[in-house]
């Protein structure tokens, strides 16, 4: 029983970073931009949050956890939004190829993260020495009283605020896309920018907004990993391929942020399953790590067979829009 509880807790812990990434990417893809830079942007969000907290804690004598949290949160938002802005400027204004820009951004962001993460470690005195414990604790603060309840407490109320924020954001994005007029406009931009343009929608503004806000949301996934999951430290390349899982999750969730919630927990569970299955050889562990991608492929096969138009990717995904094109 306890093992199952821990497994679920850990699965959720793994899933939240992916959920942030997927929610942000869903918003971006709904505007017709396939941002493969998400893994890089998540690195950038993570390391910049850590930097903010690190310099704050080192500059005052008695750091306040809540202030550290606010600084880290703001830093992660701003830097990942900047990552989104780079992508937006290159693909929307300059109409560069989205895949190339995205992959370049991922390479850049990963390097950015490891460079500054490594520099921070050096400043702190060596690999693994960096710790922003006070801020980390603040991120990990669980809901008092409720988290004490047996079973339900650990299962539902034993997480830091970013976990709840990620779920609220996922619901909010689905609500925004399906229920609001602006959401309708954004989806139209992603389906057919020419139609949206003819309907008087400012395509460029919608694409920029979605790409930047989506990148900021995705960056929170990196922040979550560094602050909540690791408790405020840096491990080189520790974030691993969670960014790519986030992009895979977008497809598996069929571009619906709400479905990405359970999808992220499933991915998280599949991601750590190899630890909980006893007696796996090293090779089998790697096979187990492939499960999230296998699930994505299976979902793709099924949805393409069902052939329901609503479940397809946004029709103009990956293409640039130029109004005077004939």
């Amino acid at each position, binding site marked *: 029983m306890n093992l199952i509880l821990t497994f679920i807790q850990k699965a959720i812990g793994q899933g939240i970073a992916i959920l942030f990434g997927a929610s942000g990417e869903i918003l971006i893809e709904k505007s017709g931009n396939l941002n493969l830079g998400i893994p890089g942007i998540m690195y950038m969000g993570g390391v910049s949050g850590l930097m903010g907290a690190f310099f704050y804690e080192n500059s005052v004598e008695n750091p306040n956890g809540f202030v550290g949290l606010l600084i880290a949160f703001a830093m992660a938002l701003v830097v990942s939004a900047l990552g989104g802005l780079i992508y937006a400027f290159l693909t929307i204004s300059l109409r560069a190829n989205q895949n190339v820009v995205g992959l370049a951004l991922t390479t850049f962001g990963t390097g950015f993260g490891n460079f500054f993460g490594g520099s921070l470690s050096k400043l702190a005195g060596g690999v693994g020495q960096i710790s922003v414990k006070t801020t980390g604790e603040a991120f990990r603060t669980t809901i008092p009283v409720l988290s004490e309840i047996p079973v339900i407490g650990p299962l539902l109320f034993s997480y830091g605020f970013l976990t709840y924020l990620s779920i609220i954001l996922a619901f909010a994005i689905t609500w925004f896309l399906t229920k609001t007029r602006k959401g*309708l406009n954004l989806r*139209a931009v992603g389906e057919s920018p020419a*139609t*949206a343009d*003819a*309907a008087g929608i400012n395509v460029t503004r919608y694409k920029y907004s979605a790409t930047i806000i989506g990148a900021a949301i995705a960056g929170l996934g990196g922040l979550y990993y560094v602050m909540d999951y690791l408790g405020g430290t840096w491990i080189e390349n520790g974030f691993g391929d969670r960014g790519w899982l986030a992009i895979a999750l977008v497809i598996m969730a069929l571009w619906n942020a709400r479905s990405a919630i359970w999808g992220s927990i499933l991915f998280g569970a599949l991601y750590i399953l190899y630890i909980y299955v006893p007696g796996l050889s090293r090779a089998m562990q790697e096979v187990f790590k492939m499960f999230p991608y296998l699930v994505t492929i299976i979902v793709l096969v099924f949805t393409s067979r069902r052939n329901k*138009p609503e479940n397809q990717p946004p*029709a103009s995904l990956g293409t640039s829009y130029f*109004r005077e094109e004939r």
Partner: protein
Amino acid sequence: MDTNYAIELKNVTKRFGEVVANDSVDLSLKKGEILAILGENGSGKTTLMNMISGIYFPDEGHIFVNGQEVTIRSPKDSFDLGIGMIHQHFKLVPIFTAAENIVLGLPAEKGQGMSRVEADVQALVDRYGFDMNPARKIYDMSVSQKQTVEIVKVLYRGAEILILDEPTAVLTPQETERLFQVLKNMRDDGKSIIIITHKLNEVMEISDRVAVLRKGKYIGTVKTSEATIPSLTEMMVGEKVSLNIDRSEPVNSELRLEMKGVSCRNKEGTVTLNKASFAARSGEILGVAGISGSGQKELLESIAGLQHMEEGEIWYYPPGGEPQALHSLSVTEIRNLGVRLSFVPEDRLGMGLVGSMDITNNMMLRSYRNGKGLVTDRKTPEQLARTIIEELEVVTPGVTTPVRRLSGGNVQKVLVGREISSNPTVLMVAYPVRGLDINYSYTIYNLLNKQKENGAAVICVGEDLDVLLELCDRILVLQGGRVAGTVDARSATKEQLGLMMTGTIGKEEAVNEP
């Protein structure tokens, strides 16, 4: 400025690179009238209207709306002036409902959820007597319903000025009639309407006045009541076009192609071609008539080897050779026998040409296998491209211009020209003059006639019955996937064809078939 005019254009000019699409055009639309804009393909009708609707921005000139000079920088500016455009290619999001498409881009009023919007749209639909369900998804709709959505959309936005770009090109005659009735209702309601078209009979039927454009220049505006079809044609093409298509008697006609009892089904399992049989002969043009979607596409594609046939046989009789069973040959083998298909789809680029490639490369799509060793032969196709540009008078900056950047008529010339250039023994063309004006159409007719005189068996699927009756030797009529009959084009009448197409007569023949 005169406030009796809803729209006035003065000296409006628009260039695309070196091509002048509109050359100082003047135009006026009175309030409460239907103005037809008539012109050949590539005469700049659509470009002109796109400037009014904010898609393009004019390089020079002035636009007045209700007597006020205005600057239209975006479609939104255009809406704000009460102008609504219904484009030739519908601007709708397929996965949205009609109502969602209609409110797209509009700010929501307080408490106005989708159900309220749907009710409002329904009210508008009922008022003008449209046939449309606001909650229906666009991908479930027919072409005419989609057009209805477009019209309701601009009405919903409070448009007082409507611009329709070739609205009847995709409609059946009945749907056209209904559309015209709605347009007249709207005019009587005080709306000002511009209709872009190149169909003269529709101009005569619907419009109050006609403005004519030729090669980007404004020629003049006349009252429809004072105009005649020949006078308008002359304004449009600039020179007198003979209304008679030359037709020679078939010589040395022999059996070239025979289809026996071919049936096809589409993906949904519906029968698209039902035991179709016919014969095509060398040195003659066989017309294929039918309401769109009666199996024309399947008929041609099964001959070309592109269609999976459920049953039936297709035999090809080469000049002085052994009969060949086309139904058991591959697409390439059929092509190499000299059986060529040139299909002009509604969007003109969908089949046969790659929009982003230039003319030479599009020629190479048919000849890339002919190179020596690893290297493809580029010289011959380039030569061919130049010949086609010259002989068919394709207007293009050069052979390296992407086909997508040419106007519709020029794209079509490239498409048809390429197939004809291979001297086929069987030439199949579908809608070769779709969207083309009279002058270009004649070029295509002459090309087909030349093929016929060279001894090819020409099969021509067409839309315009008058043309089929004048161009072809025999006409095959399709009705709901079956062959309703074949008539002699020299003696048949339009009424006879119409009745066969709608299935009023001709069923007996089908039943009596052995």
